[in-house]
């Protein structure tokens, strides 16, 4: 019936059930270095099911189900089953988490201090976090930064990085090919390959850090740096958070404390070398 997979990533344990073995094999490979859920009890359950009995066998079509579901979620093809699992896991956290303030942001850490990067899909925040993770920073996650309201600390959620389109070739210049998962061509999000994070990032996935700098990167424009005022940062982060309103007053306080506590810059960059240089420059300019 259901083939099962489970994994602990940062503070969340997941259980994935699938009607097919393909996605489970892919998950087993991608998460081979990760521990299993604490106590053997996952936080969230995800199910990959055929949209109908027939579509289990004929042109298999994967419906994304689980503890939390979107009524209008579009099914994917079985070839993209791994992507479906990844999206479903993200969805559980986005809709279900109530302790941490979730920011749709990538994060990396150095000396106990955290660099947060947020932006639209295609801004390069994922790729930048993955690159920095290969260059002396600790990779903390490319999808969600978890801010603990009571302490203001950022906690890691170091999932495999979902690299899209040109980012795959870019990343292959910096990491061994055996850390990249199967190619998934023509997904709704473009061509995708997943990158396993450095083992160190997984080993230290329980260690938090103090946010120190927030960047709004934009790829594809000529080099530019612009400070972003707290009011604008606040509004942009409310939009970048999936659970800001659900947290009520705790969310508001967490976000105002974060915004008032750290500087924020928008950076435009034409290529990764420029971006890395900009990050170095801004980071070393911090007090």
């Amino acid at each position: 019936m259901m083939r099962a997979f489970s994994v602990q990533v940062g503070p969340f344990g997941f259980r994935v059930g699938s009607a097919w073995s393909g996605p489970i094999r892919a998950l087993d490979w991608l998460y081979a270095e990760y521990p299993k859920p604490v106590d053997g009890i996952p936080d969230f359950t995800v199910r990959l099911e055929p949209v109908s009995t027939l579509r289990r066998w004929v042109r298999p079509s994967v419906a994304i189900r689980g503890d939390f579901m979107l009524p209008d979620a579009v099914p994917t093809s079985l070839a993209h089953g791994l992507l479906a699992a990844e999206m479903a896991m993200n969805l559980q956290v986005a809709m279900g988490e109530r302790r941490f303030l979730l920011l749709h942001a990538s994060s990396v850490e150095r000396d106990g201090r955290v660099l947060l990067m947020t932006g639209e899909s295609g801004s390069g925040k994922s790729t930048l976090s993955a690159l920095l993770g290969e260059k002396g920073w600790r990779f903390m996650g490319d999808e969600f930064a978890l801010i603990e309201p009571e302490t203001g600390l950022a906690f890691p959620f170091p999932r495999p990085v979902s690299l899209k389109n040109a980012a795959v070739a870019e990343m292959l210049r910096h990491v061994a090919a055996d850390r990249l998962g199967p190619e998934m061509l023509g997904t709704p999000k473009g061509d995708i390959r997943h990158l396993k994070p450095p083992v160190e990032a997984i080993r230290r996935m329980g260690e938090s850090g103090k946010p120190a700098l927030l960047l709004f990167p934009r790829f594809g424009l000529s080099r530019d740096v612009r400070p972003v005022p707290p009011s604008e940062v606040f509004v942009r982060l409310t939009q970048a958070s999936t659970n800001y309103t659900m947290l009520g007053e705790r969310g508001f306080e967490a976000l105002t404390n974060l915004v008032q506590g750290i500087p924020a810059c928008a950076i435009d960059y034409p290529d990764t070398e420029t971006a890395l240089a900009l990050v170095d420059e801004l980071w070393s300019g911090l007090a």
Partner: protein
Amino acid sequence: MNDARILAWVLADPSRAAQLRPHQWTAMLTIAQAERLLGTLAHRLAGLDVPETAARVLDRARRAAETDRRQALWEAEMARQALAPLGLPVLLLKGTAYLAAGMDAGRGRLVGDLDILVPRERMDDAEAALLAAGWEWVKQDDYDDAYYRDHMHELPPLIHKARDRMIDVHHTILPLTARARPNAAALIADAVDLGNGLSTLCPEDMVIHAVLHLFADGDLSGGLRNLWDIDRMLREFAERDGFWDRLLARSRHHKVTVYVSRALRLAHHIFETPVDRYLAWQGRRGDLFYTGRLLARNGWGQDTAKLLRFAFYLRSHWIRMPPLMLARHLFTKWRKGHQPIR
């Protein structure tokens, strides 16, 4: 035990959780989430020793229920303000009523829509006042709109444009096409004032409404939670002198005794609710089908017993309308390519 029984078993007596192994915890939490009973379970298990991860999952559910509670009560207050100029008190139904009255059934309960009861002759006024206060029609077609107005017990649903919350304005507690016809005037006449411009049905009517909502108005989706509401109310109200007699008399008055009787038997069977034996013995057979349907969920949170579910789906239409009308309704829906929600 590949159904929701494990959840019912622990809800009825939380100390049993100490016996659970990890895979049983996983199944129970998943089922509770799917049945919208996780917040309730969290309240039942509060203060008990549970595994660390389970505690985290339950904490999340507790927070979610608290947010829900605040929003639900705020919606009630907004409705009160909108209807106050009409001299219409806000008579709360279902979840919001349980919360506002501080009842056991409200503890940890999620509340989706705001349901209120208004005298039928004041429906037009109420609708106009709500539209003026920022609620607006959910987009739907003329057939649905006319169907609601001619045959249902409520206005077509309204959503508030700023807060995105839905309100259902009822004038009675069953569709006009259903076989049973509760006495709507009596529901309103015997309402209990909460003292803040809000009121609820009297205890017996609250039970009866929950029972009819479960058995006489739908396909038993989310039925386990409805039955849990009934369990909580029966336990809470039974402490008052003469409750069972009043419930029997009231059930007869509304001509819904068979439904109430069945609810008592099922609550007793599934949640071990202490019930009045005389009232519980008024119904017909077939409880096994109901039990099977109410518990039809496996440890992965999936719907099970597909055929039984479909049978209850058919039944929900059958009991809601006379045959000719049902045929016409289904034909119209089929022509428009309607798919039943599974």
